[in-house]
């Protein structure tokens, strides 16, 4: 007698190959059906899935990352190179300062791409030392709602040529070293200088105002200090990335040092950002220890986004790998919107939110069964171990459900990881715009199959352009060669 296993093994050995004729028929049908569907715009309305997405625990990571994507855009708007004249005395005074502290409050309102309208707040204390670098202590609204706050520490350390971001709630940290591999082939020192400029340093903001048209506001008083005001509404402020900018700088009329700076601007017509720099303390004494990042044991490292050509290529590749096409646009708001639409639709494919929430309650109930000490011990375990322990407490049927949810979570983590690459891409493009390198992007027409078509280009010098092609190889070309390449693009 053959045991059942033998029969099953034999059956599994059955194997036929599909004929070339079947291959042709199916591939032909794929071509025809999809060509037809492209002609007819989908008529079915999209479900209002935002509530489902936001409530679902598995999308937290990706949503948080997408919010950070836009927040970072707000934080890195300051680049400037030239100096002006009218505020030169203030700038000269500020540049003599060895160390200073100030506070900043930023409020973002409006509907973020793919996210319902709500306020997001960020409070920061910033300490800058010419000797040690810059430290940011940030508290911001948890992008996952419920009004919770999350904290971050962010360091730019010139001596170590490194930038470190610590995220205590996520038990993660991100480290970016300035290794000279930057967008426009600058040296690591240039890159570092740019990083210093990009971190809302009031000195850079003054330079920015000096580069633009501004008007005097006359005298006023803030906290008992006599101040003189300057207003700037020039669209050129922030490299043209900000819209409807209204910047007001109040300077101590006797000491010629900034006291307060108010900024209101829009991004992509959808987001209103208001920030105020206040409580400025000039020439404070600082300690080297304040600039020594402490990364607690058990924190895991995450790869940092980089505003480099390589980072941009990586971002384009990831996007195309998963979505099958390049982003339609590269400005940060459109990019975030397209990416969020992807996350929402993917999250809605097979997530049973009700089930996820029920399980979440059961897990909480399981926790309550434990006494306080055991609970603390459990909380110390790494994520994987903790889940394993929780699983042990649940009945078999629930374990299967949790496994399904965990699998979904893994996919979302992968998408969350992709967010870093998208950040790199968006920041790289924003830098090109700000530096007026004449960037042009053709993601609406060029696909990964268009090996010789220009996907993205920017100017590197008067006689050269850098081009990323549809197959993501990068080459330097002359203006004449570029003109020829761009003439071949669909009109």
């Amino acid at each position, binding site marked *: *007698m*053959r045991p*059942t296993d033998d*029969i*099953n093994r*034999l*059956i*599994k*050995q*059955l*194997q*036929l*190959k*599909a*004929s070339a*004729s*079947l*291959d042709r*028929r*199916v*591939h032909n*049908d*794929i*071509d025809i*059906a*999809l060509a037809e*569907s*492209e002609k007819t715009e*989908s008529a*079915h309305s999209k479900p209002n899935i935002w509530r489902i997405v936001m409530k679902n625990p598995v999308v937290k990571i990706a949503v948080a990352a997408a919010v950070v994507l836009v927040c970072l855009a707000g934080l890195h708007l300051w680049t400037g190179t030239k100096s002006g004249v009218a505020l030169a005395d203030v700038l000269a005074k500020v540049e003599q300062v060895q160390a200073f502290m100030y506070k900043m409050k930023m409020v973002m309102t409006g509907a973020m791409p793919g996210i319902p309208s709500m306020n997001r707040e960020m409070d920061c204390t910033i300490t800058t030392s010419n000797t040690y670098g810059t430290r940011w202590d940030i508290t911001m609204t948890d992008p996952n709602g419920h009004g919770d706050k999350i904290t971050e520490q962010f360091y730019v350390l010139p001596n170590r040529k490194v930038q470190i971001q610590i995220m205590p709630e996520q038990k993660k940290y991100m480290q970016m070293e300035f290794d000279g591999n930057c967008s426009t082939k600058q040296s690591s020192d240039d890159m570092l200088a740019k990083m210093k400029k990009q971190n809302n340093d009031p000195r850079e903001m003054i330079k920015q105002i000096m580069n633009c048209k501004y008007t005097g506001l006359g005298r006023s008083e803030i906290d008992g200090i006599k101040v003189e005001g300057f207003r700037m509404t020039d669209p050129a402020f922030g490299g043209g990335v900000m819209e409807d900018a209204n910047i007001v700088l109040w300077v101590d009329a006797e000491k010629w040092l900034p006291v307060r700076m108010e900024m209101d601007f829009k991004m992509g017509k959808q987001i209103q950002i208001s920030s105020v720099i206040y409580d400025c303390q000039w020439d404070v004494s600082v300690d080297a220890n304040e600039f020594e990042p402490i990364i607690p044991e058990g924190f895991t490292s995450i790869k940092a986004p980089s505003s480099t050509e390589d980072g941009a290529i990586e971002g384009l590749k990831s996007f195309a790998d*998963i*979505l*099958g096409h390049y982003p339609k646009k590269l400005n940060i708001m459109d990019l975030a919107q397209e990416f969020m639409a992807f996350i929402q*639709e*993917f999250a809605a*494919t*097979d997530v049973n939110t009700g089930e996820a929430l029920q399980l979440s309650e059961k897990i909480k109930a399981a926790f309550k069964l434990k006494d306080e000490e055991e609970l603390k011990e459990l909380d110390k375990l790494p994520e994987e171990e903790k889940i394993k322990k929780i699983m042990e407490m649940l009945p078999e049927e629930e374990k299967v459900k949790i496994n399904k949810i965990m*699998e979904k979570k*893994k*996919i979302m983590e*992968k998408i969350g990881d992709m967010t870093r690459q998208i950040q790199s891409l968006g920041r790289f493009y924003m830098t090109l715009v700000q530096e007026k390198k004449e960037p042009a992007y053709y993601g609406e027409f060029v696909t990964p199959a268009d090996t010789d078509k220009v996907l993205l280009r920017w100017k590197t010098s008067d006689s050269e352009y850098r081009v990323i092609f549809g197959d993501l190889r990068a080459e330097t070309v002359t203006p004449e060669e570029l003109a020829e390449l761009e003439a071949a693009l669909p009109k």
Partner: protein
Amino acid sequence: MLEDKLLVWQFNRGSKDALRHIYEKYKNDLVTLAAALLTDVASAEDVVHDVFVCFIKSSERFRLTGSLKGYLATCVANSARNKNKARQKHLSYGLDEADVVSANSNSPNATAIFGEELRQLSSALSQLPYEQREVLLLHSYSGLKFRTIAGSLGISINTVQGRYRYAVDKLRSMLNGEVRK
């Protein structure tokens, strides 16, 4: 599994590449299943073609709730069952008998499909009643659970398990008989 979910997501967005990838990934398994069910390769390929035509049309509304392989195998089984019923109808009305390959016959097709090595199995499978063969192949070849098969056939899990047991017993008996010869 992760790859399938991403493929389905791309497929929902109208990606040709995703659809081609899904077809290339599962075509041989599906043709094998259909051929073992219908004991006829040409009919099997027609079934797989029909399944993919329907699948392509479902692009925007398709939602994956289990495994993609299991879903496609169930579609193939459903389509093959319909084809088999049509054959039976033709037979019962005496139409085009010459063109019809009996699902229960030990036709040359049935034994030659899978080559000499699996000749005995192929022949024995073709002699099983269609319902038993269907359950056996969906469970043993495509890896579907009895519960899933019961759901797709609209019958009780006990009936599914019963058909599977009968199929295995008969197959074992036929194969042992063959060996003894």
